[in-house]
């Protein structure tokens, strides 16, 4: 592993670019692939990075950035990749939210929000469907449905969602642990 300044600078530059040009975390994967595979890491390393960032909890864009950064430049590489991934979205959002707080009571903003609500709801349904499809494709069986049904009942009963999610995770450990099902 080469420990030099130009690699870190290049990582920072690359992640700034990827995060300015891609609309969301998952969308950055394809873009990142083109930018990094063959240049600073092998295809195998990249696939491993994507695999791990799907398996571990938390924002996958960040995890992916850290894996790529580590493969290319060790721990300092992790830091530069992380900085590159964090700065563009948050600075933009900070500016926009600061502006928006001034218009909170304006009529046009209320209309804009009312119009956006059904579209945002549709967006969430869409993402939820994509998530479910991905998890069901990996294990097409009753266990996924069982967890989904039980959690639906729990949310219906207004059990606080962190507890429901924790329970679902534990069920995953118990149910998926037995490979010979």
């Amino acid at each position, binding site marked *: 592993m080469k420990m030099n300044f130009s690699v870190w600078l290049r990582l920072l530059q690359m992640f700034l670019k990827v995060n300015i040009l891609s*609309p969301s975390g998952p969308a950055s994967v394809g873009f990142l692939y083109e930018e990094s595979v063959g240049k600073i890491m092998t295809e195998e390393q990249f696939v491993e990075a994507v695999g791990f960032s*799907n398996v571990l909890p938390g924002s996958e864009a960040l995890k992916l950035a850290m894996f790529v950064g580590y493969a290319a430049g060790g*721990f300092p590489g992790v830091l530069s990749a992380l900085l590159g991934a964090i700065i563009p979205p948050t600075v933009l*959002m900070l500016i926009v939210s600061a502006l928006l707080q001034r218009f909170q009571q304006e009529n046009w903003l209320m209309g804009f929000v*009312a119009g956006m609500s059904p*579209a945002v709801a549709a967006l969430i349904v869409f993402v939820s469907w994509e998530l479910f499809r991905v998890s069901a494709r990996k294990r097409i069986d009753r266990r996924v449905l069982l967890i989904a049904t039980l959690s639906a009942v729990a949310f219906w009963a207004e059990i606080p969602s962190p507890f429901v999610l924790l329970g679902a995770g*534990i069920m995953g450990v118990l149910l998926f642990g037995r490979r010979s099902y």
Partner: protein
Amino acid sequence: MDILLQLFWIFLKINLLSTSGPASVGLLYDEVVGSHVTQAQFVQAVGLSSVLPGSDALQLAMYVGYAVAGIPGGMVALAGSILPPTLIILGVTVVLHRLRREAWLSNFVEGLAPAISVLMLFTAWKIFQNGDSMGWWAWAVGVVSLVAMILKAPARFVVIVAGIIGAYFFSR
């Protein structure tokens, strides 16, 4: 100070219990709407984070943190979101080969996935009702948006168009 600690804890919790950026929306809704931000602010946050480039989860954290406690709030929310994945990744790179044999963590996350999908459906329904003032128009906008996204229209485009329709026809 108290509110900052609360924010930090909320985002720490959310990032430990969600599989990916977009999946954190449902849990975030339950944790902050009503108690820290209004529903309208939350819709703005989700809409904007899908419009602006870069990670949605970080942008949601930034918006909510800023709305609750200004710039320090944004920073604290960000720190809470970044810390869990960073520590986990650093841990994994150290014990990479050990973890590959210990599948329980990946089973935990796979167990989370279906529950998160269901939670998001509940959240979508609550947010949908925020468009109530539009009557049947809300259904039209919702259905058309969903179909558009299934047909692979970019989400940022769909959300902006819906917002403009709302601003044009439904500003009181």
